[in-house]
């Protein structure tokens, strides 16, 4: 019984009816306006918008990005127009699209997260929240929430209490035990996970002798970190029963397949948008052929394929 004639790419996740598993990652797509000039955003599975904090933020001094071998460092510092700006300007503009919006929530203290989560979840344009407990850039917070299981759990349940939409917790890879973190936030009520955020890294300029980023350290993303993402998704997906939106270095349709085989239910693309602004629609276009090549009916047959018994007819 072949499903070849139906939609082979759709995926249902808590709060999210995805046409396909591909979405831009938070912070790499702004609030969509810029990429809307390149293609129709309706093509996307979902959109993860830039982190929203309670107040508007300018972020870190520049330089904020630096290239590394097969990767980049960023220390944007959560620049965003603040809750009010996102609610009044960004979300109304995004409401024109037929694509689920996942709102990334950040903060320096629990109260901020809770406030932002409560308000954003009430927007009819927001389909789900992504709790950014892992941003390593902001000195006043982030790092602690994402590295101590109890703190992450506490934050998760506080946000769950106020959110009217499903909550995906975005895990930091800068931890000794990612499985412990994942289990803690699952137990605290997370509806899903997204992983991984950036690895903390640094580059130093030989002449000035100073770090290239004005902030010193920054978050490492891009193909360099993909093996770390794959490993963590592989571990975590076997240990929890909530779905994972995978990310970290995805650049090609093969990378998407690899990440889903590792255990991701959908895949977000970050840095690669900067290299090729058309990367998301291009990969979406290539997916059906790739499924044919691999002899797979429906994209969901891939999820966790590296550790599940083969269930689809090959």
């Amino acid at each position, binding site marked *: 019984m072949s499903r070849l004639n139906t939609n082979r790419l759709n995926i249902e996740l808590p709060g999210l009816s995805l046409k396909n598993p591909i979405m831009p990652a938070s*912070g*790499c*797509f*702004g609030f969509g*306006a*810029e*990429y809307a*000039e*390149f293609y129709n955003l309706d093509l996307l599975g979902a959109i993860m918008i*830039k982190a929203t904090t309670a107040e*508007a*933020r*300018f*972020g870190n001094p*520049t*330089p*904020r*990005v*630096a*290239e*590394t*071998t*097969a*990767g*980049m460092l*960023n220390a*944007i510092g959560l*620049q965003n*127009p*603040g809750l009010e700006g996102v609610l009044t300007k960004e979300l109304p503009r995004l409401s024109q699209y037929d694509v689920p919006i996942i709102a990334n929530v950040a903060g320096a203290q629990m109260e901020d997260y809770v406030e932002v989560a409560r308000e954003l979840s009430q927007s009819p344009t927001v389909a789900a929240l992504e709790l950014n407990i892992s941003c390593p850039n902001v000195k006043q917070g982030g790092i602690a929430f994402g590295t101590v299981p109890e703190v992450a759990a506490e934050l998760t349940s506080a946000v769950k209490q106020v959110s009217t939409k499903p909550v995906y917790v975005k895990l930091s890879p800068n931890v000794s035990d990612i499985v412990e973190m994942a289990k803690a936030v699952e137990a605290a009520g997370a509806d899903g996970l997204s992983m991984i955020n950036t690895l903390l890294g640094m580059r130093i300029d030989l002449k000035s002798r100073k770090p290239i980023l004005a902030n010193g350290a920054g978050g490492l993303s*891009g*193909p360099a970190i993909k093996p770390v993402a794959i490993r963590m998704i592989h571990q975590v997906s076997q240990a929890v029963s909530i779905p994972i939106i995978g990310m970290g270095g995805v*650049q090609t349709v093969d990378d998407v397949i690899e990440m889903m085989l590792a255990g991701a239910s959908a895949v977000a693309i970050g*840095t690669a*948008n*900067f*290299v*090729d*602004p*058309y990367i998301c629609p291009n990969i979406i276009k290539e997916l059906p052929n790739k499924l044919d090549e691999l002899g797979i009916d429906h994209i969901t047959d891939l999820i966790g394929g590296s550790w599940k018994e083969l269930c689809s007819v090959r």
Partner: protein
Amino acid sequence: MQKQAMLKVESQRLVADRIYELILSGEQVKQMVNPGQFVHLKTGSFDDLLLRRPLSICDVDSSTETLKMIYRVEGKGTERLSHKKSGDEIDLLGPLGTGFPVEEAQPGETALLVGGGIGVPPLYYLSKQLISRGVRVIHVLGFQSKKDVFYEEEFKQLGDTYIATVDGTYGTNGFVTDAIARMELQSDIVYSCGPTPMLRALSDLYKGKRAYVSLEERMGCGIGACFACVCHTEDDPTGTSYRKVCTDGPVFKVGEVVI
């Protein structure tokens, strides 16, 4: 509009110490009508140098659909670019950004174009457009040393051209501001591009005047999505107001943003 395309290398040549002139061709060039805009180039199809490199548009010939850029070999990306040969293809995103406001200069007025080092190239296309608008142009171009000077002849053919070198090995001794003072150059409007200290000096000199500066900043996306390239505005220098160099700029009016 399709902003990304593969362009063909027509030619590449060394024009000064580590400075190359690169000519590309392709339909995409049709869109490149504003001087001061830039393109974002991949230096190869390899993943080790991940990001695109921003380079200014130096000149455009729409009849042949060719685009000229001039760049200095600084690091690995420009080094790799310098090995491209005619016939090779280059992945280009552009034109990007907001260029020099040609329309702010009225026919008959005098425009002073001030460039420093690899900030010189975009002034060339600007100068040509100003001239075709009936604007008189004066060029002041600053370089480190004699070996770094390029395009002097080309600029001379468009209008008065003064060269300054920091070490005094060619032209006026000192910075462009020294040359402007020494030659007592007068103008109605100023356009400039170059290193930050030069732009700061010019901003002081032409505060409140019709003067425009083109900034440089490390970029991620080049299209306004990543917030890598922001700067503060002068009216809110420590607040949350900002401009993006890649889309609001790279050209700003003096006094608009904190340099």
